[in-house]
Structures are given as C-alpha cells and as structure tokens.
C-alpha cells in the first residue's frame, strides 16, 4: 500500500477557555490505513478527532494553535473552505444519529448538498453506500421508511453509509461501537478493513482490543499528549513507554 502522508499535524495545541486540551501534537497519518487512537477518557482523543474536520469550531471558547495539513494544505488557514473540508473528511459519532428522515433521504443528505439531483445517480450512490456499510440486504426493501425505526446497530451502519455517500477521503470514527452489540461491531469492523483501500481511516476507541484487531497504526494519548505512536503490532507487543504498557495491560485508565 502506498505510504503517502494524508494528514500531518504540526505543533498542534488546542484550548478550551484557559484549559489546554492538546499538548503540541506532531503526527503524520498515512493514507489508506487505519489509525487507531487509544487512551483513557479525557486524554484528548475526541478533541483531536473533532479538530480534524473543524467540528470544534462550533464550540464557543475553543481555540487551536499550530497546524493540521490535509494533503499539505493547512485546514485552519483563513482561506480554507470549511464546508469543502467536511465533505472530504466524514465523521461517525459515538451514538448513531439518524436524521428524522427516511433511510434513503439520510443517505443522500450529503450528495444532495453537493448538488447531485439526478435520481439515477442518487439511487446508485444509495445502493453502493449501503452495500459498503453492510446494511443493504437489511434495508433494501424499505428505503422509504423512517431511519429512526432501525435498531441501534443498523442505525450506526446507516450513518456509515451516509458518510460513504458523500465520497470523502478521510473517515473519522469516534468510538463508533461503544453502544453496539458484538455482531454489529463485527460488521462495522469488517467494513472498515475493506474501506481502508479507498479511504484514510482514523478510529478513536476505548476498546484497546478493537484497536489491536483492526488498526494498522496505533497512537496512545494521555492527558493531551501523544505518548507513543507506531505500527499496531509493535505497540501492543513491545511498547516503548511504560505508560503505554500499563494502559494496554489494563493497569490504569
């Protein structure tokens, strides 16, 4: 697989009011791989993730220093188009949030915003996205029914399909399986391992085993700092830092 750098952070610091949430992060994230981010709650994993699509911009009092480069371009540069950024960098939230619309309308939400109005093209997108998210067979006969009526696991896969339909380059996942049963979790993980051929995937998880199962690279965050970052197999077998070792063996966190 190619080893191009998709996202790079340079001296990235984040603040909420007077509080510093991220401590000078320098990371290179490779394209077409799954990066797993682990660490105890409050370690800045989610803050980091939400900085990558600038969703934290909506939080009053949030401030960022340093830079995040997407394909070499600084996404916090004043000229950078935030709306275009969010189309390129999709995000799956911890709890599935289907919009109160039909299954079909949920999937085409992003494409419609991009101006795609052609029914045939939308239909194709819906089918392809739902298939990639492993949910097509369960919903193909009721695309017009409300997305709210799906089960939690189905909703989360629908949300994944909704992201795929906007044809992003990067997919951010914020503990996407925290509320799901093992079977739905397995389906999401299976989807991710296939999707990484096309996308760069960043997976924040509280479940270290999940990172060990699906991530190519793993990063360990602690109190806003990046403690250790490397190939998953190395990090879980020969951690360089004692704190990493303590965390993955369950001694704290």
């Amino acid at each position, binding site marked *: 697989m190619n080893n191009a750098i998709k996202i790079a952070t340079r001296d990235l610091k984040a603040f909420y009011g007077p509080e510093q949430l991220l401590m000078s992060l320098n990371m290179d994230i490779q394209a077409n791989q799954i990066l797993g981010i682990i660490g105890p709650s409050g370690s800045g994993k989610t803050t980091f993730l939400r900085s990558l699509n600038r*969703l934290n911009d909506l939080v009053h009092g949030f401030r960022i220093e340093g830079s995040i480069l997407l394909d070499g371009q600084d996404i916090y540069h004043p000229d950078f188009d935030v709306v275009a950024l969010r189309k390129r960098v999709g995000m799956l939230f911890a709890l599935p949030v289907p919009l109160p619309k039909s299954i079909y309308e949920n999937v085409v939400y992003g494409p419609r915003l991009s101006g795609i109005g052609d029914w045939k093209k939308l239909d194709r997108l819906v089918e392809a996205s739902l298939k990639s998210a492993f949910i097509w067979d369960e919903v193909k006969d009721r695309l017009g029914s409300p997305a*709210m009526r799906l089960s939690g696991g189905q909703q989360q896969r629908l949300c994944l399909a909704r992201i795929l339909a906007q044809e992003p380059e990067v997919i951010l996942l914020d503990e996407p399986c925290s509320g799901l049963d093992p079977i739905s979790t397995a389906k999401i993980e299976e989807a991710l391992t296939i999707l990484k051929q096309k996308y760069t995937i960043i997976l924040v998880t509280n479940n270290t085993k999940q990172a060990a199962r699906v991530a190519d690279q793993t990063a360990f965050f602690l109190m806003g700092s990046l403690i250790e970052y490397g190939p998953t197999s190395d990090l879980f077998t020969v951690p360089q830092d004692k704190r990493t070792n303590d965390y993955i063996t369950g001694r704290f966190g």
Partner: protein
Amino acid sequence: MRIPPRYTQTAAKLVMGLATLATLAILVFIILFVLEKGLPVVGFKFLLSAPRDMGKAGGIFPVVVGTILLTLVAILIATPLGVGTAIYLTEYTRESRATRIIRFGADCLAGIPSIIFGLFGFIFFVTILQMGWSILSGGLTLAFMILPTIIRTSEEAIKSVPNSYREVSFSLGATRWETVQKVVLPSALPGIVTGVMLGVGRSIGETAAVIFTAGSSLRMPSSLFDSVRTMSVHFYILAREGISTENAYGTAAILVITILLINLTAYGLMNRFVAKNN
C-alpha cells in the same frame, strides 16, 4: 405525626384528577352552552347571506370573509417575522446580554393588554400612516400582538431540536443555513405550528384591538384598504347594542366551531407529519 405515604398518594391523585375534571367540565360547558344557544340560527343561509338591518336579520357572510382576511394578513406578516427572529436568536447568535434583552422585550410585549395594541394601531397605522380603518391596519396590529407568542414558541421548538442533528448536518458538509432549512426547521415544525395556531386563535378572538384598527363595517370588503367587521366584533356589537341576541349567539357558535376546526386540522396534520418521520 406522619401520614402514611399511600394516603397522601391517593389524596394527591384524587385532587389532581378533580382539577382536571373541573377544567374539562368548564370547557365542555362553555362550548355546549354557546352551541345550544347559537346552533338554532346557524345554517348555510346564515353563513352565506349578507346581514340586513345592522345584523338584526340576514346572515354574516361579510363578517366571515372579514375575519378570514384579517387573520390571514396577521399570520402572513407575523409568521415569517416571528420564525425569522426565533431562528436568529437560537441559531445565529450566542446567548448574550443582547439576546436576553430581546427575549425580555418579547415577553413584555406578550403581556401588554390588547387594547393598548389597538390604541397604538389606531394612532400609528390608521392615523399617522393614513391607512384608515382597514384590513391592513387591523392585520398589522394583530401581527404585532401575536408576534411575541410566535417568537417564543418557535424559539422553544428550535431549542428542543437535539444538537447532535446539527453536528451531523455540519459534519456532512452543510452550511448553517442548509442545516436550519433541512434539519432544524423540519424537526421544530410541530412546535412552530403550535405557536402559529395560538396566534390564529388570538387573532380570531380579538375584539378590542380590531375595533380600533379595522373598524366595524358590515359591507363586503373589496380591497385590503376596506374596513371589515370580524366575528368577535360582530358578536360584541350585536350583544352590546341589543340588536339581536339570537344572531349574536349564532355568530359565537360559528366562532367556536371555526376555532375547533382549525385546531383539529392543525393537530391532525402535525400527527401525520410526525408519524412520517419517526
């Protein structure tokens, strides 16, 4: 001495139940009373013919038309202004001293007696702007009167839309306005419609503000600058001047039925809308 919980429990349930029963009973009594007195004169002829002899005889057709037009003008002006203000306050500004002052102002406006609005409308629209007693003067006055209600109910409805919907919409590349249009407003619609319906109810039932601004002409209006008489005003004049008690109750019956029908329709539409999306 402590009363055993199961007694207080039973007593509380009983008292609350009685309160509910009393409320419902009064409501049903009022409606039945008005209908009982009014229905004998009500019919298509009463509804669709012109009044004769100051309303002593004949029907109330121009009055019905006047009520509809006046309410329409008020709602068509107040809804965009009110919902727009609510969207601005909730989606485009942060909670600050300014938003609190605007909100406080709206609450104060809601508490002003309608006759004051009537007086203001008379001085400002009728006299200064020389609109005369007209549908336009009355509609504008009513619009300002119901505006605070529409703003506050819409604001509450918009605030109750889960923030996660907005985050999802933004994360899918929507702008603020696209998010408002496609996610926030559809979810807040039931609440907004409730506010508008309250406004419709108040407009139809209003007397004091309307006499001062729309006048009490019994002629069929031919433009927005004509004076009209609404059903409430008609009822007031018929009853107060002792012109015709029967026709006064007939008008009241139609007023009550109209408001019931409007509320039922809105309620039904809302239920269908909510069921479709959830």
